[in-house]
């Protein structure tokens, strides 16, 4: 077996998403993370009202991620065939939930900060 390099993965994801979407994501993702950290620092901790709303959006986002993946791959929950499938599906849900919650928290935080300014 050979090595799976970062260069190979970049090539594969470029083919999967198209170079424009791929590189846009590469640029946007760190910017989003910086914005999230900025909100956290600016508010000196977690702002509970925004956090609660973000959690609700996270629940929806996680479920939506699973739904989109199942739809894109012509599969359903009943196709889970072993523990690794459940782990993979749960990972998709968790990834979608955390991602959408972070996006929601950042947007809400930025809006609230703007209002308070």
């Amino acid at each position, binding site marked *: 077996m050979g090595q799976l390099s970062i260069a190979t993965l970049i090539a594969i994801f470029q083919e999967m998403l198209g170079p424009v979407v791929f590189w846009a994501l590469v640029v946007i993702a760190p910017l989003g993370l910086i914005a999230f950290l900025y909100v956290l620092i600016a508010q000196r901790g977690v702002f509970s009202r925004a956090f609660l709303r973000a959690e609700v959006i996270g629940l929806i986002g996680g479920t939506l991620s699973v739904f989109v993946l199942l739809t894109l791959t012509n*599969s359903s929950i009943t196709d889970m065939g072993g523990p*690794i499938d459940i782990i993979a599906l749960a990972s998709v849900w968790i990834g979608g939930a955390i991602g959408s919650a972070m996006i929601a928290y950042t947007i809400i935080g930025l809006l609230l900060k703007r209002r308070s300014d």
Partner: protein
Amino acid sequence: MSDFSKMLGAPLNPSRRRAIRNILLGGAALSVGARAVAGAKPVATKARIVVVGAGAAGLGVAARLSQRLDGAKITILDARKRHLYQPGFTLIAAGLHGASYSVTETAHWIPRNVDWIEEAAAAFDPAGNSVTTTSGKKISYDFLVVAAGIQLDYASVAGMDVAQIGKNGLGSVYASPEAAEATYRAMSAFTDKGGRGLFHRPATEIKCAGAPLKYTFITDDAARRKGNRGKVELLYAAHNKSFFSVPIFNEKIRMLFEDRGVKSVKDHVIKAIDIGARRASFDTPTGVETIDYDFINLVPPMRAPEAVRNSELPWKTGGWAADGWIEVDKHSLRHPRFPNVFAVGDIAGVPKGKTAASAKWQVPVAVDHLVADIAGGKSTASYTGYTSCPLITKIGRAMLVEFDYNNNIMSSFPGVISPFEELWVTWLIKAIGLKPTYYAMLRGEA
């Protein structure tokens, strides 16, 4: 990776480490194995290299040679304007995609510093180091890489007419993406109405030996989804005494057929078909037997293209001589009688695997040997016979079948993705992972 091991607090064995790494990096079976010499300085050369065939193997070779050589005159020969992603044919024939799913333009994949001659090779003169194209153009070379693929020999099945695919219950996934789409229409009509579905494979070497099995399972699944499985009889006519050449997987398939209620007969080699009467004839040890069907997925016998068969390149003796597969050392892919000639992909006369995954693993090895020849060195790269087949057992599940020349299981995700379990994650690899990996392979990047 050592840091990761420390994080887990326990040393990892190499295979487990590989599995975890592959999962962390999101890798798929086909994607394992990157550039052999990423970052190495290109070798300066004026060598003339001809690559025959712009399929998966040929384009991969051209791309990697263009990355590793500086100043070489690389020419690729292929008359086909369309490049076909053949692993997608079963998905098209399952009704999940249209024919366009597998079609791109050959021109899109030709590396910038490679000359494409839009003609097929008509004759090989390996003693004189030249190839002649269909228009009579003679091209001399210092190195030749033959990746001419396979010829679907429909003509050797008496009564077969490719134009009839999609009609009268006649399916044949292999012929083209359009034929795969037409096969879906015929299969769908059959699973609506019921009757006998007949599946088989020829006695020759074939592309992806799992594909005839996959389509049996896909048809079973289609009938079940429609609630019509009770109206459908599925019969698999094996060409010898097994369903699959790797014994451990053969046994699993036997169990799956039993589970799905797929009947089988052994030692049946297709000989003729009466499309109008929906009847197939098979050579068997006890003579010719006919089987009536309502739907058939006809898999044509497959041989080397005529120009290769008529040349000095094929095996002279042994099991691969008759169908014209090129004689090569199974580990280096180098021709033993013409050392400046390599064969990769389906055309290579090696014991296992005519799949994109095989091509994926053969290409870097042959390229490494060729580049070492130019550089005056010696390559230690060796192809183990690795091949893989995500064996679809229903829409939404597959088994990750991976093995080598010695019928060893070669799991990409040992301990994590079992090759004997019907899994959704394996289906994900097939459904969304393989196509981008395949295209990255054409660019020499995977």
